[in-house]
């Protein structure tokens, strides 16, 4: 390669890099704009020109949202239901994935094929029957009612099974030789080995559940039982036509998951690529 072409390639590379950075800034601008708007007094928000920073920054909308609205209650609903979905889904999937991968039992391959098949089924089409089921059980407007239909994530079992499949058989044989009980083999050998995967899957499962809209929206009619994701769009009178207040509610609803992502960036990326069937 001649020096001239190398320089030309470098210049093109630099231009691409600059364009990428500029695009990223534009891409994330609406996020910035929402946060800034939530820090402006209402009269500044509706000014007919663009101000990238508030003249008089204020936290009054946050104080209002946290003290005068039901947001606090919605936070609790969201945290409890998302945590329950995460613990129940990840543990039942881990156990099931382990059994399918490592143990012999009747109907094992049939169960595996059913799980693979259910991966394709659009859960949104089951809303009618989920509603009827949850209503029959008397669980409308309860935490359990919000949680129950969210407990199926076939992809988590699939990821676990593939991971356990990748563990050399010697581990199990050695443990059996030592007369370790099945439960000990699982909890002392296999689970610690997959701790990274479990953390990653738990984090994304929590985010999925926090963000889920359709089912929690159907399962709850009382405002005090809403999750935050549903609540901020349903209770308009709480925020009125005050734009800054609405954006404050949006920031408060998005903040927890955004923080979880920023703190556990590597784990989240890992889990998401895994769930799409790509080994990271």
């Amino acid at each position: 390669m001649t020096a001239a072409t190398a320089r030309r390639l470098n210049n093109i590379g630099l231009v691409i890099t600059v364009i990428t950075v500029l695009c990223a800034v534009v891409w994330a601008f609406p996020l910035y704009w929402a946060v800034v708007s939530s820090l402006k007094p209402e009269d500044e928000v509706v000014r007919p020109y663009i101000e990238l920073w508030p003249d008089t920054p204020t936290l009054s909308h946050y104080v209002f949202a946290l003290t005068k609205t039901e947001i606090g209650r919605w936070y609790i609903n969201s945290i409890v239901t998302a945590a329950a979905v995460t613990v129940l889904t990840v543990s039942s999937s881990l156990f099931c994935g382990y059994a399918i991968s490592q143990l012999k039992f009747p109907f094992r391959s049939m169960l595996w094929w059913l799980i693979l098949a259910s991966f394709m089924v659009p859960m949104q089409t089951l809303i009618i029957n989920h509603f009827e089921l949850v209503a029959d059980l008397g669980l409308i407007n309860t935490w359990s009612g919000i949680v129950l239909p969210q407990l199926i994530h076939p992809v988590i079992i699939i990821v676990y099974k593939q991971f356990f499949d990748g563990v050399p058989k010697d581990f199990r044989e050695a443990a059996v030789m030592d007369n370790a009980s099945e439960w000990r083999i699982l909890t002392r050998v296999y689970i610690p080995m997959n701790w990274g995967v479990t953390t990653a899957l738990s984090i994304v499962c929590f985010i999925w559940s926090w963000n889920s809209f359709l089912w929690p929206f159907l399962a709850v009619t009382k405002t005090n039982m809403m999750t935050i994701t549903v609540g901020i769009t349903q209770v308009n009178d709480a925020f009125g036509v005050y734009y800054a207040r609405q954006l404050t509610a949006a920031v408060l609803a998005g903040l927890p998951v955004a923080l979880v992502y920023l703190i556990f960036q590597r784990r989240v990326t890992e889990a998401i690529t895994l769930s799409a069937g790509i080994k990271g």
Partner: protein
Amino acid sequence: MLRNRRRETLFALALVAPFVAIYGLVFVYPTIKLFMISLTDAPLIGGGNYVGFDNYTRLASDRRFNTAVWNTAYFVLITVVPGTLIAFAIALGVNRLRGRLQAAILALFFLPYILPVSVVYLLWDWTLNFQFGIAMHVFDLLGIQRIPVFKSTAWFMPAVGVITIWWTAGFSILLFLAGLRAIPAEIYEAAALDNAGIWSTFRRITWPLMWPITALVLTIQLISQLKIFDQVYLFSTGGRPNDNVVLVYYVFQRAFQSDQGGRAAAVAVVLFIIVIVVSVLNFQLTRLSGGRSR
């Protein structure tokens, strides 16, 4: 040893029991029930009389069902391929960066994906607000007439499509990046020795090697956009839901607003079958093309 085998079986059954119980209750049972009530005139809750395939035959002349089918197809058309190409382009750009800069830029592109749909809704409803939205200031600067985007039938779907691409691109970008990182550097070094330019390197090396990932992203996008509901519902509030209706939205309207469980179930079954057929076709296609390249 025989005792061990029995113990293993019992232990395995105990491990799968919780999942199987949940799976039966919230997956198998509702799925069977869905097909059953689609053949009845049942309300949302409670039984109904068997009506054969009436609910299905009625769909042919149901204007709102047709709107829902067209809107869903339109939405798929404007989001799947453009969204995938945009994500690919961004991934190529991000892949050139290194270290902390790369992590920061990736985070900016990825953050929207991690947010709940209702936050995305409030954010864009504000950005595109007819009176005060910042996008309208931009429109003014460019001399474009202001549009009440979500109240106009012509603009609704394209706008929701663009917002959906913005919201979900982060996911596709991650998959593309994983694919780009898996291409061995030696291939590019060899191409550079041969004096290949940026464009021919991309066309001859990157694009063909990335095709499997591209196909995967396209499929995932296609299936998830067929099931679209949340954004369309939220942006339609206060607008014209009947013009913007998509398939899941129509299921919701029939079941929860008209209290017609049976008719809603028939629509749900149609969507159910479309998604399964697309998934199976795609699975067969990737298997065929995989078999040929090996």
